[in-house]
C-alpha cells in the first residue's frame, strides 16, 4: 500500500481510489462502532475520504496512511456523534442497526455489552481487538498517551465484566442479612 500512497501523494487519482477501496471496509466498521447507524457511518466514511484526498499531500510518512485516515475518520465520526447525540432515532430505540452489523463476536450478550459501552471505550476496543492495532498506534490515532489507551482498555473490559455479571452486587443491608444467615 505504501507505494500506492506515494503515487497518490503525487496526485495519482487511480492510486488514491485503490487505497480507499482497500480501506473502506475497515473504515466503515470503525465508523459503525462509534455511530451505530449505517447512514451516519457511510457519511463519516465519505467525508473522511474527501478530507484525505484534500490533505494527502500533507502526509509526511506514507507508511502511516492508514493510521492517518483512521484518525481523520474517528474525528469525523466523533463530531457526527456529538451533533447527533441530541437526537434519538426511532430505529436505534428499536435496536437496529447495532454493533453486530460490523463485527460478529459470536456472543450476543457480549456484543450488546460492547455496543452499550461509551464511545471512548468502544473505540479502543474496536481498534485494539477488531482492527488489531497496537497500543502505540491507537495512542497515535486518538492522540492520547499510551497509558490512557491501556487504562481505557482495562476499564472497558471491567465494564464488560460488570455488564455480563449475573446480578448486581448486593446492597449493604442485604450483605448484613446474608452474613447473619451464615
Amino acid at each position, binding site marked *: 500500500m505504501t507505494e500506492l500512497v506515494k503515487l497518490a501523494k503525487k496526485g495519482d487519482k487511480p492510486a488514491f481510489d485503490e487505497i480507499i477501496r482497500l480501506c*473502506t471496509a475497515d473504515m466503515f466498521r470503525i465508523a459503525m462502532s462509534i455511530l451505530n447507524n449505517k447512514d451516519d457511518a457511510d457519511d463519516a466514511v465519505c467525508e473522511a475520504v474527501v478530507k484525505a484526498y484534500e490533505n494527502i499531500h500533507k502526509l509526511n510518512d506514507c507508511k502511516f496512511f492508514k493510521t492517518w485516515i483512521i484518525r481523520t475518520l474517528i474525528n469525523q465520526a466523533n463530531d457526527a456523534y456529538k451533533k447527533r447525540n441530541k437526537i434519538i432515532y426511532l430505529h436505534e430505540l428499536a435496536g437496529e442497526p447495532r454493533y453486530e452489523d460490523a463485527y460478529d463476536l459470536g456472543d450476543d450478550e457480549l456484543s450488546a455489552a460492547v455496543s452499550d459501552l461509551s464511545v471512548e471505550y468502544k473505540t479502543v476496543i474496536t481498534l485494539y481487538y477488531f482492527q488489531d492495532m497496537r497500543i502505540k498506534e491507537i495512542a497515535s490515532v486518538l492522540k492520547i498517551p499510551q*497509558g490512557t489507551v491501556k487504562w481505557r482498555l482495562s476499564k472497558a473490559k471491567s465494564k464488560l465484566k460488570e455488564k455480563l455479571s449475573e446480578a448486581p452486587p448486593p446492597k449493604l443491608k442485604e450483605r448484613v442479612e446474608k452474613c447473619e444467615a451464615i
Partner: protein
Amino acid sequence: MRSDIDTTLRNAKKIEIPDSTIDKVDIVLRGLKPQRDTAHTKTVNKKVAIIAAVAAVIAIMIAYPLLPAPINNSFTAQARAVLYHDIVLHSDTMALHTDGRQIEFNFSATREFGMWAGFYDGEHMYLSIALDVTGENIKSAEFSVTSGFFARQRVDSENVLIITLDEYGNESAPLIFGTEFESLGNRLTLEDMQAENYSFSLAVPFNHRLSFGGNSDHCLENLQVHVDVLFNNGHLQSDTIALDFGDGGAVISFSQDMGTLGEFSFYRMNLDEATLIPESVHVLPLRENFYDSFGRWRTEMHVWEREDRTIYACTVLFRNDGDEERYMFSMVGGNAVMPVIRLSANGNLIAMEYILPNEVARMFREYWVDSVYMLPEGWLDDLLDGLYD
C-alpha cells in the same frame, strides 16, 4: 460458563460491509477532481526547494569551520506523576543538544486541591508515573533515580484496581492501585516503559510520621529522575528531572493486613454494636489537616502507632451540620478493628479503637473488595457540591 472476554473479543469476525456503502464511496471518489496540476506545481516547487537546500548545504560546508559546533541531536524528556483527583504534576524538561547547551527548562507543578495517592508498603509510596522521551536520532534512553525505585504492575491483573478520574474531568490520569508490584530497581529503559499491559510506578520514600497536612513538612521525599539518552551517532546526553511533591498530604492505601486490594474507604458504623478497646483510648498527639478547607468541609487524617501497628483514621468535620466521624477498617488477628476519632468538648481529638461485631467482620472480609460505604446517602454529591460551589 462464559468464555474469557478477552479471547472472545480477539476472535471477533469482521462482517462484510453493505454494497451500498461501497457504492457511496465510489460515487464520492468519482466526484473528486484530479489534483495533477496542483501536484505538478508542488513538484516544481519541491525541486526549487531541493536546489535551494543543496545550495545552502554547500554554503554551510564551506563556512563550517567558521561556525560554532553544529546541533545534531536533541531530546525532550518528560516525567509525570499522578495525583489523587485531577491534579497532575508536570515536569517538562529540557531539550539538550550535542554541544551540551541547555536549551530550555520548564518545570511546573500544578496543585489545586487534593493529595498524593498510592500504595504504601511501610517505607515507600507507589505513585503512578509516566516517563517519556521524544526527540530525533535517539537509540535508547534510560531513567534512573538515586532514591526510591521503579516498579510495575499488570493492569489486566484481577488484583489491580484502577480508579478512574473521569468523573472529575480528567480521564488521562488514572489512579492504579494494587499490591502486586514488581520492583524494577532504580533504572528503567524507554523500552521497558513501552511494554503493554503494564502500569509503571515510582516508589517514593514516604515518611508518614512527618505529616498528612497541607500546612506542614513534606511527607514525600522530593526526587530527581535522571535520564541518559544515547543517540544513533554514539553521543550520550544526560539530564535531570526534578519531581517536587510539595507540601500536600497523602492518601495511602495499605493492604498488608487485608490481604487484598489496596483501597481506601471511609465508613460509618453504629458503635453501640462494637466493643471498645479501652487501652486504645488516648488524646491524639498530632492534629494536622489534609487541606484547611474546601467549601464547608474540613478533613483531617491522623496516624498513630499501637502494638506494632500504624493506625490511620480520617475524620471529616461538617462545619454546618455538626461533627461527624469516618473511619477506615483494618483486620487485626481476624477481628475487624475500626479506629475512631472524636472531637471532645474542649477541642481535643480523642483516638480509640473498636472491635466490630463478628458478622460485620465477616461481611468486611467477604466484601472488602467492593468497598462498603456506610456514609449518609448522597454524601458524595454533597462533597462534590462543596468542592465546586
